[in-house]
């Protein structure tokens, strides 16, 4: 699998993502500077976490206008796989590659803690290693992770099976009103969604930070091993 990681000024989890991809696939991804105007030949484009342009104005807003994003859009339109994590998810929404927006966390504080994610939609390249209803642990680290969209959009996402991950308790209960279970207050406890064709996926928590038994565990690894499998096929 040939993966590329887009680096914007202020991106800071590109090394984490590279490490996760390297560990799970055995191949180091390429780093792609945001001012590039073409993408190399790739199977997967990743927009990693961080504070692109300081997240000043709105998280991800300025990055969504970087030259490379026109290419990422074209790549997605041709059916390419795109994964956006944390700031990457914010950038995908700002670029309208995914619907909705990420507001300030409901409690107004940055949240750095483990959360549990329930897999709502299996069978995607991103989730093929799980079955629907599976729960896994992932660290979250963000100030603006409060997913919002119009009721229509939310209904459509649910109807089309595009809600990929939800915040949940360790045993899989989804309690949108409960701050210990849905810490940032996201609408319908949504943590991650996908595009219509299921090939563009964004989520707030960081599965890439849980892929190494020496660093806290491997709960996040299935996302990457699944992708590698899917893209090799």
């Amino acid at each position, binding site marked *: 699998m040939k993966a590329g990681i887009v680096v914007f000024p202020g991106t800071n989890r590109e090394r984490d993502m590279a490490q996760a991809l390297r560990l799970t696939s055995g191949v180091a991804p390429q780093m792609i500077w945001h001012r590039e105007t073409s993408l190399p030949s790739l199977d997967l484009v990743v927009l990693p976490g961080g504070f692109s342009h300081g997240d000043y104005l709105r998280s991800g*807003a300025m990055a969504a206008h970087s030259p490379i994003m026109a290419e990422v859009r074209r790549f997605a339109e041709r059916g390419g796989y795109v994964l956006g994590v944390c700031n990457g998810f914010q950038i995908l929404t700002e670029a309208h590659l995914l619907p909705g927006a990420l507001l300030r966390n409901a409690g*107004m504080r940055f949240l750095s803690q483990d959360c549990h994610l329930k897999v709502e939609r299996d069978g995607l390249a991103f989730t093929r290693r799980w079955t629907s209803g599976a729960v896994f642990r992932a660290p979250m680290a963000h100030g603006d992770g409060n997913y919002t969209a119009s009721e229509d959009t939310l209904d459509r996402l649910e109807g089309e099976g595009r809600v990929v991950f939800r915040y949940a308790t360790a045993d899989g209960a989804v309690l949108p009103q409960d701050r210990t279970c849905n810490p940032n207050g996201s609408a319908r406890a949504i943590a991650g969604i996908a595009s219509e064709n299921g090939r563009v996926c964004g989520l707030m928590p960081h599965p890439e930070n849980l892929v190494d038994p020496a660093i806290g565990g491997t709960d996040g690894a299935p996302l990457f091993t699944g992708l590698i499998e899917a893209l090799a096929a």
Partner: protein
Amino acid sequence: MKVRVTVMLKEGVLDPQGKAIGHALGTLGFAELGEVRCGKVIDLDVPANDAGAAVTQGEAMARALLANDVIEDFSVEALS
């Protein structure tokens, strides 16, 4: 020419910041506040000769970057 772009969350979009501010003002003893909404202002010095042209430029910038039309509305006014 100076213009001010004001960006507010759309009506109906939950405003966590406004809510937190309302709560904090309540604990400080400011009672009976209605809804509190929080937004941004961006003051820009644009290369225009008259207020109309300046506002048009401000609007273009708001559409291009300063506001996210999924969740936000904006207004632009010429300053001084």
